[in-house]
């Protein structure tokens, strides 16, 4: 068994990499949501002064990492590596942001679990002694996602009640070998779970089993249970997916009291998103704008952050394929001194 691997899928980071800086950039709709005041930058419109939504999303990701760097008084050249991903074909947004930063770059694709995936990989790089400062970003944009995955944004179709609204937002963190902030202690890498859902307008149902599987494995690997955490938060299962997860937990005798979901936290019911938010940016902005602060203040001491992703493509739905999903979990703790 490898030195820092515990059980089947969990990694241990004994050197406790530290998240020293973070930033979130969101669109106007998210700015009007429950966490509106907490984001670093709220854009006035979804084009952000650019000609295309894709360029706007790239600017958002770029701004989020720049703000994180600025808060730590660093420049892009100070990062050893940059990990980033988004929802667009060929992870366009991440590639062009990496071009701007001119930093050694590893592109990631985990759909909406990308941010958690980035945290896992950053932990590996730091624990592996090959880096001292790593930047991680993930982003999504409602309009670029609709254009690519679904239908034209001006098309007058009705969204089903199971649908989630892709968050227009980008989050970045800087994670270092030393410093002050939140520590990353463990990560559980997920397996792909596909229980036969094929409705691309209901990703919550498809992803809940993946979240559950990773959670179970995490508990088994570390010998922990739900009471070891102040909060267990999933990335974007949404109202329906979260409800399903709670059923799965009940069947296993796990109490759902400490569970929540970023997709539910990012929008208010008045914003009529049906099942809540989704997208790479969703879990990222909620973590950076809200949950990290809660850890810093001691409100939470230890949380389990489970990014959830639906790994379909625009073509696979049309070809009648089911939706494979994945969930990655990271344990974040306040330093507690």
């Amino acid at each position, binding site marked *: 068994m490898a030195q820092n691997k515990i059980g089947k899928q969990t990694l241990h980071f004994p050197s406790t990499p530290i998240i020293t800086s973070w930033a979130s950039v969101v669109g106007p709709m998210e700015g009007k949501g429950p966490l509106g005041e907490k984001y*670093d930058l709220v854009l006035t419109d979804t084009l952000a002064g650019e000609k295309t939504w894709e360029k706007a999303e790239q600017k958002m990701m770029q*701004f989020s990492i*720049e*703000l994180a760097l600025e808060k730590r008084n660093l*420049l892009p*050249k100070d990062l050893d590596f940059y990990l980033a991903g988004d929802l667009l074909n060929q992870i366009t947004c991440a590639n062009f942001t990496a071009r701007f930063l001119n930093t050694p770059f590893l592109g990631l694709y985990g759909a909406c679990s990308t941010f958690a995936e980035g945290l896992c990989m950053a932990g590996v790089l730091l624990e592996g002694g090959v880096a001292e400062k790593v930047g991680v970003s993930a982003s999504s944009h409602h309009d670029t996602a609709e254009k690519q995955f679904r239908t034209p944004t001006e098309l007058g179709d009705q969204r089903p009640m199971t649908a989630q609204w892709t968050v227009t937002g980008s989050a970045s963190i800087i994670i270092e070998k030393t410093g002050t902030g939140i520590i990353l202690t463990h990560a559980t890498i997920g397996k792909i779970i596909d229980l036969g859902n094929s409705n691309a307008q209901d990703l919550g149902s498809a992803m809940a089993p993946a979240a559950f599987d990773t959670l179970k494995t995490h508990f088994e690997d570390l010998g922990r249970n739900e009471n070891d955490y102040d909060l267990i938060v999933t990335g974007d299962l949404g109202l329906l997916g979260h409800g399903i997860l709670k059923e799965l937990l009940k069947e296993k005798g796990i109490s759902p009291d400490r569970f929540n979901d970023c997709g539910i936290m990012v929008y208010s019911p008045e914003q009529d998103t049906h099942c809540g938010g989704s997208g790479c940016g969703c879990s990222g902005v909620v973590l950076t704008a809200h949950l990290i602060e809660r850890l810093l203040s001691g409100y939470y001491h230890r949380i389990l952050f489970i990014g959830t992703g639906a790994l379909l493509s625009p073509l696979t739905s*049309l070809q009648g394929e089911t939706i494979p999903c994945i969930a990655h979990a990271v344990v974040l703790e306040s330093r507690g001194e």
Partner: protein
Amino acid sequence: MIAQNVLLNEQEMTKWLNELQKEHQKVLFWEAQAKGEERKKFAGLRQEIERQQQRIARPQQIDYQSTAIKLVPPQTVIKNVIMAFLVGGSICLIGQIIYNLFTQSGLGLKDAAAATSSFLVFLGALFTALGYYDELGKVAGAGSIVPITGFANSIVSSALEFKREGYIYGVGARLFTVAGPILVYGTMVSILVGLVYYFVR
């Protein structure tokens, strides 16, 4: 700050870019905290810095492009032109033969023309479905693209490719991926011609 389009050496370029990046981050930070007019002011400053960042990178890009372009293998224009002439001419020749056959069999001139186009569309679609039209296109270039058989080829090949995505979003939608613009702009110009004719007459 810098306006000249001078090719800087690696060291100088890095130095300038780092300076600009420091400023960019600071201005962005202030912009994020500001509201209303003040925010617009910072946004303008930030965009100016971005322009300067691009200006610095540009000479290096131009220099590289001019080096790389010298190594690009030349297009075999003469050979392409000859093949386009031969294949394009042949397809038109076949069209003429078919037209003659239709008129000889008693069809009026206009109907024979429509029948000829239809038959050529059929041939183009058939050879696309059989997998031969792309082989022809490789050697013939414009000779197989420009005739109406090429129009049929673009329709069928697109629909074939996306058949696996179903009949609505796959075949149905893709039939007109290339043919669509042709119809859109062709119709548009014909309407303009009609309007001009109406008013000039």
